Structure formats: structure tokens, C-alpha cells
């Protein structure tokens, strides 16, 4: 990149033409707009149904679904889901830190590529396939139980499948890339000279972490944590497969209410709650990214 200002400013002159091509911009955006528009229609459908009456979702109006939402059973499911999402976000963020640190600090291009592929695979490969693997590891006759009973002599010492432990493992494992990538981006922006300076001034490594690395990495870590939280509040496959019928998250309850129980307004109200959570997550994420940019100037 040259620091000298170019006498010709191509971008500016392209913008000068822009008003003439305004209708074309609309045309360029139309197909994508139709897909996103359908998503917005879906959100509106859910909102309409949530204030509809049971068995008359399109014609009746009622707030029954929202009063049902406030029943103790539903409140406990909502709190439960949010709590599991929070806990999984916390664990994932902690676990992601050393991986992100390795990813940014390693000098070997091969190691970096290997780690990248290894963290992306659990995200990309079907959750279904991975759940089968977890079943084989955590199940009553699974790897873990066999290993532990071989070591201790206790028959089937653990029950890790179809309960919260199994669901939590699945949630953390599948969302690690969401936390690693933003954390790594934040770590990459810390110049090594800062750490060298801290060292010259007499700080040991622990102080360097506390006063330099962690404060500078936290926006990335927070962005990752929020993303993981958002993803896991809507978790459906992992609780469905690893939780059996014992762990109910909001998404699983939505399926039950809209499906077998055919209480569509309640399912829609829960859906609307999930949408609101997702929107809150997105704006919080944007806020953190923006503050971070402002700090860096």
C-alpha cells in the first residue's frame, strides 16, 4: 500500500454514477431480499399466532398463550434453558482461550491449519452423527463407563446420557468454534511488543496475562460467549438426542406444543421469546464489536 494519495479517486467517481444506477441496486438486492423477506414473514406469522386463540389462530385474538407462558412449569423450562446456555457459554469461553492462544501464537502454518480444521469439523459435521458418537462414549455400555468400571470394579458407575451432563458436553463441543474464532481475532490484534515491554518493566507472565492479554482479549471473548449463548438458547438437536425426554429446552417444548399437543399459540409465544433472545444477542454482539473498534480508534 502506498501512503501517497492517488490523484485519481476511482471510488468517488463510481459513487457519482451511483444515483443513476439506484434502480439497479434494488434489482441486485431483490433475490436476497426475497429470502430474508420470507424470514421476516415467518417472524410475523409466529407473532400473529402467539396472540391468537387456540384452534382459531388466524381469526381469534387472545393473550392466553402469554399467561400460560408465565406458568411455573414454563418459567422453569425457560430459566433452565437460559441457565444451560449461560453455563455452556462460560465453559466454552474458558476452553476456547488456550486453543485461540495456540492458534494465534504458533509459528507453524501446518499446526495452525490442523487446529482450524479440527475446530471447524464439530461445527460442520451433522450434529446427528456426532450425537451417535457421544451415545457410544457416554451410554450405559459406552467407552467411559467401561473404562471406569474396569478401573474401579463398579458396574455402570455413571449415567451421563439422557441427562444434563450429556447435553452440556454436546453443547460445548459443537459451539467451540464460535468462541475460538472471535477470541483468536482479538488475541491476534495484541502486538507482541506490548508483552515484551511488560517483561522489560519487570512484570511476570501472570501479571502480563492479568493486565495486558486478558483486558485486550476480552471483547473477543465476550463476543464469542454471547454468540455461544445465543446459539444454545435455541438448541434443538443436542437436547433432543443427548437429553432423551428428560432434558427439555425451549426449542424442544416448542416442537411438542406445536406438534403432539397442538397448542399452537403457546408454541408461538415460546418461539417469539426465542426470536427476542436472538435479537438481543445480535444487538449485544454489535455493541461489543463497535465499542471495541472505538477503543482501538
Amino acid at each position: 500500500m502506498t501512503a501517497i494519495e492517488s490523484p485519481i479517486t476511482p471510488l468517488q467517481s463510481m459513487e457519482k454514477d451511483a444515483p443513476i444506477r439506484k434502480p439497479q441496486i434494488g434489482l441486485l438486492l431483490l433475490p436476497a431480499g426475497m429470502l430474508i423477506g420470507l424470514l421476516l414473514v415467518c417472524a410475523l406469522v409466529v407473532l400473529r399466532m402467539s396472540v391468537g386463540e387456540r384452534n382459531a389462530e388466524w381469526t381469534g385474538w387472545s393473550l392466553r398463550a402469554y399467561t400460560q407462558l408465565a406458568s411455573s412449569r414454563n418459567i422453569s423450562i425457560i430459566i433452565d434453558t437460559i441457565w444451560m446456555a449461560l453455563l455452556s457459554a462460560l465453559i466454552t469461553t474458558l476452553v476456547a482461550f488456550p486453543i485461540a492462544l495456540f492458534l494465534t501464537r504458533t509459528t507453524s502454518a501446518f499446526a495452525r491449519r490442523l487446529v482450524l480444521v479440527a475446530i471447524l469439523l464439530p461445527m460442520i459435521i451433522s450434529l446427528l452423527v456426532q450425537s451417535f458418537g457421544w451415545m457410544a462414549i457416554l451410554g450405559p455400555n459406552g467407552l467411559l463407563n467401561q473404562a471406569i468400571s474396569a478401573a474401579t470394579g463398579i458396574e455402570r458407575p455413571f449415567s451421563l446420557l439422557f441427562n444434563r451432563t450429556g447435553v452440556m458436553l454436546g453443547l460445548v463441543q459443537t459451539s467451540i468454534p464460535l468462541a475460538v474464532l472471535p477470541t483468536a481475532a482479538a488475541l491476534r490484534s495484541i502486538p507482541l511488543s506490548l508483552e515484551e515491554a511488560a517483561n522489560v518493566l519487570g512484570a511476570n507472565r501472570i501479571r502480563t496475562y492479568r493486565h495486558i492479554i486478558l483486558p485486550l482479549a476480552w471483547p473477543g471473548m465476550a463476543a464469542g460467549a454471547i454468540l455461544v449463548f445465543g446459539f444454545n438458547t435455541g438448541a434443538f438437536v443436542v437436547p433432543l438426542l443427548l437429553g432423551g425426554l428428560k432434558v427439555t429446552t425451549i426449542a424442544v417444548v416448542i416442537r411438542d406444543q406445536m406438534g403432539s399437543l397442538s397448542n399452537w399459540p403457546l408454541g408461538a409465544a415460546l418461539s417469539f421469546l426465542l426470536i427476542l433472545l436472538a435479537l438481543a444477542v445480535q444487538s449485544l454482539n454489535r455493541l461489543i464489536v463497535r465499542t471495541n473498534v472505538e477503543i482501538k480508534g
Partner: protein
Amino acid sequence: MSMPTATGRAGMEWQLVKGITCMLLALMLAPICMVLVISFTSGDTLQFPPPALSLRWYQEVWTMLVGPDAGIARLRESLLVSLEIAALTSLVCVLAGVPASYALERYRFAGKTLIEELIGLPVVFPAVVLGIALLVLVSASGLESGIFQIVVAHSIVGLPFLMRNCMTAMRGIDPMLEEAAKTLGASPPRVFWEIVLPLASGGIASGAILVFILSFNEFTLSYFLYSVDVFPLSIWLFQQANTSFSPAVFAVSSLIVVVNVAAVLVVDAVIGSRGSAA
């Protein structure tokens, strides 16, 4: 023991970081490895470790694919449907995402920030809600469209992933090139076709492959939108897991894993060869 360095890139601290990273990656990949190992069992159950290794269940899968009972097993049918859905989804995302990426990357216009926000929405939108709402729309409107209701659902979710890759690729194109083409008399569509598209093709291709993989593996949306006639592979696997949980399911899963890994490596090679790997 080596001495710690100012940046922690050597010595005990680095060994610790390396050790923890290796351990965590092993844990993350454990379920995938487990599926691979069990698929080679010679036994009838999901026992671990397998009593002996054999290709028995792969033979079984082969029979399900091309044997005389292939029609009953429905594996081939669902595999073909999944491939078809994934290919159509990639196509729809490219057709919708490439022009939109160009508009957002090159022009400034009213409402641009809002549109950028909206494009990112499908990433955070809960899949269960999208699946159920689309199901409601389909049944309320009477527009039962078989494969297309799944393709549209997958395309909504895949669009941001394609556009992210595409916009990164377009950002790397020097606007001077487009300006030069215009000066030489090329019309805007011709500039787009002959300058922008070829230069962004790597990003578009990697985005399209990513969308293909995502669609092929997608479960939640398909779970709400599948029908008896349109039956993607993920739904086939789910139903097998609920009925006969035999090692054959693991053999099919292993084949899916192998295809996925191959696709990831292809994306990596495409991006890598362009010299813009993350």
C-alpha cells in the same frame, strides 16, 4: 527446562498451552472418531472396543444402496434427495447472494446498514422457529412444494455464509480494474461479468461448497419440512437411530464424515491458493 520468554512462545507456558490445546481437540473430535471406529466392528452391536475389525457393515450399506431391497431401505433415495437439495440450495444462494454482495460491497445507498443487519439475521434466528413457521405457511397456503420448501429453508440459512465469503473476495478486487474497463467502454453488466465474477470466483466457490455441506448436514429445518416423498439423508439417519440402531447407521455416518472432511479440505485449498486464508 527452558526459560520463559517475554511472549510465552517457548518454555513451560508454551508447553502447557500446547498440551491443553491437544487435549481439548482430542475431546472435541472424540465423538467423530468413535463413529469411525465403531463402523468397522464385526459384531452386531455398538460395543466398544469392537471385538474384531471388518468391513461387514460397509457391505451392508452397499447392499442397501444398490441391492435388490434398495427400494425398501430408501437409503439411496434419501442420499440422492439430500444431494439434490444441497446442490439446489447452493445454486439459489449463489444467484441471490452474489449480486447482493456486489451491491453492498461497491455502492453506498440509503438503508444499507439495515440491509447488512438483515442479511446477518438468519445466523441468529432459531432454526426450530424458522422450520415451524415455514411449515405453518406451507400448510396454510396449500403450497405443498416437496423439495422446494426444504431448499428455500436451507437457502435462507445458507445465504449469510455465502455472502460473507463472497464479500470478502470482492473487497480484495481493486476498483481501478472496474474503472479501467468502464473507461474502455464496457457496460456495467459486462464489467460485472468479465472483471468482478472471475476475480471473485474463488470466494464464491468456497462459499457455495460451504453452503452445500451445511445443507447436506442440516437436520432441524428438514425435520419440520420433510414429507414421505422427500426424505433427506439426515431424516433417514434419525429414523434409523430411533428404530434399528445398528452399526450400519455408523457406517453411513462415517461415509458422511469422510465426504465432509474432503469438502472442508477442498474449501481450504481454494481459499489457500488465493492467498487469503484466515
